[in-house]
């Protein structure tokens, strides 16, 4: 405690090192939250239980920290979509173009780094990655920037994606040993997706994995020609997960391009809308599972591939679960990518059964049509980027699910469509927090948030028997993770806009949540 206080006091004088102990990266998060998801598994489960079912009513506001940038270009309100990292008592949070270090005990700003807006999309930023004393931040216009964690000073910048080609960069870099893994976004102009590993010391390229196979490689046969492949999309815009024992990096890829108009890219379009397992040392593909062969609905499959050890048919298995944007829950054997279960958790009338590999078969009649087709899932899909959670104590997978109906239109009917080539419109929309039995896909409990609009809150589960998420009306809500009963709530100034996280500092467990332009910390005070 004394050390921590001293450490905080010294930050301003730049003496205290902020070093992240690499061992923390492979442990469940307690006093440190060192990656976007808290650990490599993507479970967003905290073993902390200082805040628990029997004292949750005493949970109260500890501090608030508001970012004061004002509105940003092209987006109406600032939204903290980043999950802050917490290392040695300091939180690192971001919005597009901005990074802050904030004292986790008090919410006091320690430093602020600003990148001048030069392009790209300011749709969101998921946070920073950390290696030793250094942070990694992606500016919206394709620059990877390394900062000193102690004072926010820029160490170097490298250009990783071209905003003039409509790439943009929003993800939180994922650090694995001496690899800084970064992905890209951008589906406005038919560019190919990729994932890169960069040297944490210099930013130099270590390897690059391309979403589309090169001519003659396996998977190339799922595209009609080179032009389709070279402009096939498949962005990599959310952080993946990692199994150190298998030394496999798991990553979800985005939708193919042109987005809604699939006529120039007949075929499955590998490896778009897929979960891929890569060797983090060289970027080589170990296996893939394609969630949406030949997607035409803009349903990126980038949602977190969540890793845990499960029991399947009475046998312990290394599994991965993903609540995909296309409305399916997928359970895979993560050693080899073999499908165990594919079950819809939202509407899925776009699919016409499953193929032998457990991959949904798209129904061509539900692909966008000139006069519209009615689909029983909202336009944005069954969920989106907001992180889900897996609780090993309940065995349940939790996701903010979207239910509804939408119309999909094909607009560019030419042989060589461009960009989006169509559009979608949600007619009716309802959000529900769902607890799913990963072994069967059965909904154990579901809580529909009353009213219109959609919740875009992430989910956190804890060993205190609690589940934290938010509704679309601005309530941060604690649920009994087992039963779904609402046990506590607090009305914020905006709906929860990130994945809640929790850490223990000096014997106090803090629950930390971003909502709009404000970061909130809650604790049980003694």
């Amino acid at each position, binding site marked *: 405690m004394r050390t921590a206080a001293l450490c905080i006091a010294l930050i301003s004088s730049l003496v205290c090192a902020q070093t992240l102990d690499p061992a923390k990266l492979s442990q469940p998060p307690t006093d440190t939250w060192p990656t976007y998801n808290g650990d490599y598994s993507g479970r967003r489960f905290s073993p902390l239980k200082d805040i628990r079912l029997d004292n949750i009513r005493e949970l109260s506001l500890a501090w608030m920290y508001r970012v004061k940038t004002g509105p940003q*270009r*092209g*987006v109406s309100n600032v939204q903290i979509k980043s999950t802050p990292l917490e290392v040695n008592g300091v939180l690192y949070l971001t919005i597009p173009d901005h990074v802050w270090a904030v004292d986790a005990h008090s919410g006091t700003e320690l430093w602020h780094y600003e990148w001048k807006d030069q*392009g*790209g*999309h*300011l*749709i969101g930023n998921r946070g920073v990655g950390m290696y030793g004393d250094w942070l990694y931040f992606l500016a*919206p*216009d394709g620059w990877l920037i390394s900062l000193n964690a102690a004072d926010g000073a820029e160490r170097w910048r490298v250009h990783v994606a*071209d*905003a*003039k*080609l*409509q790439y*943009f960069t929003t993800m939180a870099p994922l650090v694995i040993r001496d690899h800084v893994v970064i992905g890209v976004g951008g589906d*406005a*102009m*038919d560019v190919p997706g990729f994932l890169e590993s960069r040297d944490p010391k210099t930013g130099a390229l270590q390897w690059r994995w391309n979403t589309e196979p090169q001519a003659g490689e396996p998977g190339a046969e799922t595209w009609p020609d080179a*032009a389709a492949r070279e*402009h096939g999309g498949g962005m990599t815009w959310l952080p993946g997960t990692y199994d150190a024992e298998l030394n496999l990096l798991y990553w979800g890829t985005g939708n193919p391009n042109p987005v809604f108009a699939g006529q120039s890219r007949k075929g499955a379009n590998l490896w778009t809308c897929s979960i891929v397992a890569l060797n983090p040392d060289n970027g080589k593909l170990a296996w893939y599972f394609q969630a949406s062969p030949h997607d035409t609905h803009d349903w990126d499959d980038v949602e977190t591939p969540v890793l845990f050890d499960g029991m399947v048919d009475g046998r312990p298995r290394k599994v991965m679960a993903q609540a995909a944007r296309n409305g399916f829950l997928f359970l895979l054997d993560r050693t080899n990518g073999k499908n165990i279960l594919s079950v819809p958790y939202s509407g899925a009338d776009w699919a016409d059964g499953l193929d032998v590999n457990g991959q949904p078969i798209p129904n061509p*009649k539900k692909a966008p*049509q*000139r*006069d*519209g*087709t*009615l689909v*029983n899932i909202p336009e944005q899909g069954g969920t989106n980027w907001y992180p889900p959670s897996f609780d090993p104590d309940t065995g349940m997978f939790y996701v903010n699910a979207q239910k509804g*109906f939408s*119309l999909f*239109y094909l*607009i560019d*009917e*030419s042989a*060589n469509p*461009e*960009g*989006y080539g*169509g*559009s979608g*419109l*949600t*007619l*009716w929309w309802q959000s529900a927090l769902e607890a799913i039995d990963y072994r069967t896909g059965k909904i154990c409990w579901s809580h529909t*948030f*009353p*009213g*219109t609009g959609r919740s875009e809150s992430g989910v956190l589960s804890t060993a205190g028997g609690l589940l934290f998420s938010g*509704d679309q*009306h601005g*309530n941060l*809500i604690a649920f009994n993770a087992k039963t779904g009963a*609402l046990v506590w*709530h607090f*009305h914020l100034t905006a709906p929860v806009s990130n994945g809640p996280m929790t850490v223990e500092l000096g014997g106090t467990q803090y629950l930390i949540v971003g909502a709009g332009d404000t970061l909130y910390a809650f604790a049980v005070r003694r």
Partner: protein
Amino acid sequence: MGGRTIALHLLCAVSVFAQASQTPRSTPLDERLQRGREFLGLGAPPDAGAAAAGQKIFSANCAFCHGATANGGEGPNLVRSSLVLHDEKGELIGPVIQNGRPDKGMPAFSNFTSEQLHDLAEFLHQRVYEAVNRWGYQVGNIVTGSTSAGQSFFSQHCTSCHSPSGDLAHVGSKYQATDLQALFLFPRTLLPVPVHVSIRTPEGHEIDGTLVSQDDFTIVIKDKLGRMFSWQTEKIQFETHDPLAGHLDLLPRYTDADMHNVLAYLVTLK
């Protein structure tokens, strides 16, 4: 779902279509394009006059290889060209046209004036803009169904609340087909349609009104005099009546053919 609900359906149906004529539902194209341009980080919009002039030059001189819409033929697709996407106002495009690319079989067009080069560049930027800025996309002709089949569907499923000569008279001329499709499927897609609420307080008071907001903890209503009331939901009894319940019941039951038929029928209600 009793007589009361149906009465509410009617009431609301009237108000839905009454509001519609007064409420501008879709943002004008210029504003949408501007919003898209800001979000996408695009520069100034192309000069439409120059682009139109450029298109004529392009058709006569370039379309033969690059396609009429510049997205490729024997020659490369220029809409996805990295050089075009990096060009601001002809500074990169101009020299390529003037000098050609002899190594790739493109002849030099050294006779173009700087104004013609500018127009050509603006035409290419216009093409890129049309592809990238999806805020400007326009849905095509969606009236493809059978009017008689639509009328028959309407008679079976809609006439308990709606009448083609009453609340729906002239909807075919009031609305664009794209709006009409969204409106009949689920009116709240484009219009605010209030939900009716009946509250019974612990003291036994009954208050009727329309829903202002509702979450898991609080309900706010407005009564017919415009007064707002708020309660913790656990402290009261309340019932909500959504006048669009019938629309919600139908949403999972439409085939795409039903949907297209109903639209084909509604557009005839001029």
